[in-house]
């Protein structure tokens, strides 16, 4: 416990592991999968070297990883795990259980495409499969954010009005494996920020029964309580970040850049860095960028304030919902707009599937195309697939 505040060159994975190291975690159980492996390897090394006083259980599958985490969490331990893609899909059953049993587990997801066909590169489809699982979902744009948000995730998860698991998402490879100088807090600062709070647990001294069977007479109310807790997570963010030692790293539900734009671009994850660069530095003041960090609970009402005056909204989704009316983020945005009676055209853009990165020129092309339609008064709601088939469709 002697690390000072320092700046360390780290990848997103390394930053997550570093944050967990400082967070006095008690229990880590994970299974390796690209591109999360570095997190697990780093933590394994930290535990072996004594830098982290925790149990490290190298389980035989991701399903067992999250299961072991639930068991440990119900004993009162501070628990962390991490996965991607197929691993997350395998854990899927237990994601609902972890949330239903109100376990404040923190999980870093290095977002990666789902098979089939198999693809190890980044997109958000893995976590989008777990949208309804009752987890708090945070998206990071950078290793720096991955560091700060992992620490705050523990605080948020363990808040007495929340008691829910939190997923901290970072784009596979582009964030998980890219290096940048990350400013860290001191061990002491993190320790003080994350006290251990009591909660009901397994102990022979007070024998409780966890994981009950709820008949139709009771099940519904449990789910409502869970949903309420998820809403609470949104409500207590202010409280959670108030005492965070580094204000610049405080978790925000979303950030807004270039406020005076006529067209708003909404998206999540590392690619928003590209959009921000264009909006702020490359003369694209026509646009406002909203980069969402808290996807669940969805900050719909707060977002709408920034959307209602736009002439068009571009929603960028790094996942698809085939067969559904819209991809995930666009679905939520449209839902919120509809509730507020706002009928602004929404251009839904699916990009980056399977690691096909949206380059600056691709995004510039997209933005310019939308701008010309807006200026011509001909923009309508539709779906585009950026970079698919070699050209903008």
């Amino acid at each position, binding site marked *: 416990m002697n690390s000072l505040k320092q700046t360390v060159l780290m990848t997103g994975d390394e930053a997550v592991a570093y944050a967990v190291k400082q967070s006095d975690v008690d229990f880590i159980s994970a299974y390796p999968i690209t591109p999360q492996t570095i997190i697990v390897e780093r933590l394994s090394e930290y535990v072996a070297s004594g830098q982290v006083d925790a149990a490290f259980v190298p389980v035989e599958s991701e399903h067992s990883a999250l299961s072991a985490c639930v068991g440990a969490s119900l004993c009162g331990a501070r628990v962390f795990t991490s996965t991607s893609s197929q691993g997350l899909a395998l854990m899927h059953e237990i994601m609902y259980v972890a949330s*239903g*049993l*109100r376990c404040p587990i923190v999980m870093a997801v290095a977002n990666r495409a789902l098979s089939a066909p198999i693809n190890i590169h980044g997109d958000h489809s893995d976590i989008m499969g777990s949208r309804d699982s009752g987890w708090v979902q945070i998206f990071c744009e950078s290793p720096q954010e991955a560091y700060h948000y992992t620490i705050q995730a523990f605080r948020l998860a363990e808040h007495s009005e929340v*008691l829910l698991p939190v997923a901290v998402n970072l784009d596979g490879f582009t964030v998980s494996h890219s290096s940048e100088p990350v400013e860290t807090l001191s061990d002491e600062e993190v320790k003080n920020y994350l006290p251990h709070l*009591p*909660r*009901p647990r397994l102990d022979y001294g*007070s*024998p*409780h*029964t*966890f*994981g*009950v069977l*709820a008949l139709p007479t009771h099940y519904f*109310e*449990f789910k409502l*309580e869970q949903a309420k*807790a998820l809403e609470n997570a949104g409500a207590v963010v202010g409280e959670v970040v108030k005492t965070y030692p580094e204000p610049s790293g405080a978790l925000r539900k979303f950030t807004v850049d270039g406020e005076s734009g006529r067209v708003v671009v909404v998206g999540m994850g590392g690619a928003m860095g590209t959009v921000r660069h264009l909006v702020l530095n490359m003369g694209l003041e026509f646009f406002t960028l909203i980069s969402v960090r808290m996807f669940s609970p969805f900050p719909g009402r707060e977002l709408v304030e920034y959307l209602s005056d736009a002439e068009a909204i571009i929603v960028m989704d790094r996942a698809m919902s085939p067969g559904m009316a819209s991809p995930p983020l666009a679905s939520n945005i449209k839902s919120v707009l509809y509730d507020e009676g706002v009928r602004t055209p929404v251009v839904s853009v699916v990009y980056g599937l399977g690691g096909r990165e949206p380059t600056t020129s691709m995004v510039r092309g997209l933005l310019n195309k939308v701008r010309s339609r807006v200026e011509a008064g001909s923009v309508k709601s539709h779906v585009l697939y950026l970079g698919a088939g070699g050209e903008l469709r």
Partner: protein
Amino acid sequence: MQHRMLLPVVFEAGNSVEQRMSSWRSMKPVIERRQCTNCLICWIYCPEPAIYRDADGLVQIDYDHCKGCGICAEECPRRAIRMVVEHEQP
């Protein structure tokens, strides 16, 4: 510790004892006191448990929770338990 949120937890250990199972049975065990040696064999083989030893050391049937399976009568080494039709006066 209780928690004011609704959690899928039952905090009160063993509160199923509040549920009466007597309506499940059509036969009930009756212990023949003269034969019974309070050996506890019926007790160790009861699935509920609906058999206990009272303050005087006598083995008794807990009729609130006995489902009338008949294992006790079957296994009693002294044949000190007979199954009678419910509502029959012993």
